[in-house]
């Protein structure tokens, strides 16, 4: 089970509190986690990745095990501690604006 932390406003949209736990089929990558997340909570489609290009929205970042994975290729495997559920995969809203 993979744990995912999403920003406050997306938790509100998805009507969830705290972490989201996902059963990801196949290898756990950035892409497969996001596809599983959007499949379970379709209201999040377009809010993390662009609908058409599937590019990460500019003011969101991906973190795992204290590493910034935002610029990694979508099929990059996630760290073992995220795969095992010991650490969450973090989707973070940039500290920007006022």
């Amino acid at each position: 089970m993979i744990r995912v932390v999403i920003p406050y406003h997306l938790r509100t949209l998805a009507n969830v509190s705290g972490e989201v736990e996902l059963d990801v089929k196949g290898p756990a990558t950035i892409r497969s986690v996001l596809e599983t997340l959007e499949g379970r909570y379709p209201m999040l489609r377009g809010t993390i990745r662009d609908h058409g290009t599937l590019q990460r929205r500019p003011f969101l970042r991906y973190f795992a095990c204290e590493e910034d994975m935002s610029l990694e290729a979508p099929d990059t495997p996630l760290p073992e501690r995220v795969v095992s559920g010991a650490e969450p995969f973090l989707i973070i809203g940039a500290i920007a604006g006022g």
Partner: protein
Amino acid sequence: MGAVRVLAGTRKGAFVLTSDGKRKTWDVQGPFFGGWEIYHMKGSPADLNRLYVSQTSGWFGQIIQRSDDGGKTWHQPGLRPGEPTTTPDGMPVAESNKFMYDTSPETGKPLTTHQFYDGTQHPWEFKRVWHLEPSLTDPDTVYAGVEDAALFRTTDGGQSWHELAGLRGHASGPQWTPGAGGLGLHSIILDQSNPKRMYIAISAAGVFRTDDGGTTWKPINRGLRSQYIPDPDAEVGHCVHRIAMHPTKPNVLFMQKHWDVMRSDDAGESWHEVSGNLPSDFGFVIDVHAHEPETIFVVPIKSDSEHYPPDGKLRVYRSRTGGNTWEALTSGLPQKDCYVNVLRDAMAVDTLDPCGVYFGTTGGQVYGSTDGGDSWAPIVRDLPAVLSVEVQALS
């Protein structure tokens, strides 16, 4: 005597303000969607309980919200609470925030480019919905004006959106340039006397009209003069801030341009200036009295460099002659030390008698008048900056 519902979109959420026909005491509900920018919210003329909201964020993009009970509860179209969120084969059902430019060979236009601030050509990129205009007759049909400028339509209550690509594909498209606030399609006017006719306005391209239900479009900017563009009389490139029409006089249009208040008496074929004795002809809003087609309202702003009222006095100006002759309406409005702005979608009129007039400010006030503008009172004083105001008369 009916009741009224004012819909206020703000920088940090949506608010629903309701009152009886006297419009003296108000119930304030909200914020809905707290923390999100609500560019616009509007009710369907065909079903007063059907409301649509454009909810946007620089972080998370575009969301469309809908209420079927007058704002008590909300949902993203296609995602009713408790219903499955995927189809039987596991595909997500929600596409209510999917605004994809139409590039199909059958109906679409290639994703070409438009002119950017620096004079180069720039790809079209969807950013947000600026304005939602529900159909006059069908609660499930809504038009959406978006940035980068394009017109979309839903016919299934907001579940899916499809571009009317003939507009963006107009030959002048590559010349369209964003205004300081972006390349936004901000005004949509439906003509109740002619279902095939529609007007839209884009900053900073100008006004366009369709006479075939949105398939083809014609720029209608003759008579506009804009000193800040290379050819002051160009067919496109004018920074139109807002257009308005009275439903019983569909060939008469009013416009607040960047500078200049304008009027057309021939469905936009030609325009002439009616700024008259205004203290400044810069501004954003313009609207028409519900029962007097020649009575119009504007809020003059000092200049394009100083977005606040002249002399620190918040004054609505009313013309009872369709322009040129204006009177200041000040009763109940702050007449010193007032430096708020009134944005382009932040004025509305109700259809009660006497006509109610409403506007919201970037200082978070929503003002209302129950006597056609003679006197004003704040409905609320301390909301986040107001982006849009609409009103519904509830029978």
